[in-house]
């Protein structure tokens, strides 16, 4: 049976209530909605960064609902990359990698080797997001959560990164959730669209 993410997020963020139920399997599922619709909060709840009021997060038959973030097999790419500014690119990627070999493998795979010793402050937006992607994947996650990682990139960089993500999702057989307000990004990844508005899914 293929891996499946089965989620029912019921939570409240600053008096904004969210009730979202979804299933996602290997490939890209797009949570599509405007700013403030609660889509990023759903990702954060799946990652364990905000608690559920009720509901569940299950993956491949395992209940993650009560697990802390570090015990969930997720890779999370944040909108602002969230690279650790005091660490080099290589050390950022190695942060959650099981071994240095894994870190180096992802450094090479995303063609980041020339940047290995650079600090995040000296990277362009596109470079930073590629490092963030490599860092998330070096942990060998089963679920990849992409929180608008392309929104601050220029068009050519965005197309290049979309292509890389599309290839990696297939190659690594990842259950991937992309949060975006840009329909093109979801379409470029060949994703299944779920429309979210006001903290609820709509057809």
């Amino acid at each position, binding site marked *: 049976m293929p891996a499946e993410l089965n989620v029912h997020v019921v939570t409240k963020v600053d008096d904004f209530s969210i009730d979202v139920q979804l299933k996602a399997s290997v490939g890209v599922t797009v949570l599509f909605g405007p700013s403030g619709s609660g889509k990023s909060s759903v990702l954060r709840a799946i990652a364990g960064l905000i608690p559920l009021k009720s509901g569940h997060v299950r993956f491949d038959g395992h209940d993650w609902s009560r697990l802390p973030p570090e015990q969930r097999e997720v890779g999370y790419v944040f909108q602002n990359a*969230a690279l650790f500014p005091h660490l080099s690119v290589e050390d950022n990627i190695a942060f959650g990698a099981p071994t240095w070999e894994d870190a180096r493998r992802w450094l090479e795979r995303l063609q980041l080797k020339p940047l290995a010793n650079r600090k995040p402050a000296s990277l362009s937006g596109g470079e930073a997001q590629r490092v963030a992607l490599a860092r998330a994947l070096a942990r060998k996650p089963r679920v990849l959560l992409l929180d608008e990682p392309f929104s601050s990139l220029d068009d050519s960089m965005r197309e290049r990164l979309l292509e890389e993500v599309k290839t990696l999702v297939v190659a690594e057989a990842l259950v991937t959730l992309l949060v975006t307000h840009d329909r093109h990004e979801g379409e470029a990844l060949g994703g299944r669209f779920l429309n979210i508005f006001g903290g609820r899914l709509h057809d």
Partner: protein
Amino acid sequence: MQWRATTRRSNFTHVPVDSLLLSLQVGLFAASVAGALALGVIALTHKRKGATFVDAVLTAPLVLPPTVLGYYLLTALGRRSVIGVAFESLTGSSLVFTKTGAVIAASVTAFPLILQTARAAVDAVDSTLLDAARTLGATRMQALRRVALPLASRGLAAGLLLGFARALGDFGVTLMVAGNIPGETQTAALALYDAMLSGRERDAAALAVTLTLLAVGLIAGVQWLGRRHHAR
């Protein structure tokens, strides 16, 4: 009092140097102890409910009269207290009216300043970075140790300097808990008071000027670290 008899005869005595060295020693120990405790408190309460209340209680020494603090410490650590009796039976030495007492007194006065400065520095670290660390397999404590503390290091250093400066200048709590024993617990602030009372004005002036220069130097260091921290 032989020490008073010898010191009155000369313009300058060894008292300022001895008491300053003792103050530096006590200040270093106190800043280290208070710094370690402050980090422990931050690690246990970071982004947790109740942190504000904990900070309010632990910062109270900043505004309490030194005599009140001294009273609490004497009650808690005195020779007839549970802790005092236990410490004396283990080490053969009393906690109060010793160098250990001076370090405890200085630690208590330095602690709130270190806690406040360190807390502000750690809280200023972007919380997304800590979230990122958690999704990369770090526990709450590991995220603090590997991400928040390195990024807050200049703020932490500023807090330690500030605490050291405060410990260096403590008078009231040290007097109550450690006494004013020359060569044992007489820190620079106490020696200055003693020099004034016994008419050794040159000693008093030397101590006052040295303590002022040290304070100005340390505060300049704190401000330099603060500017570097914000420039990061």
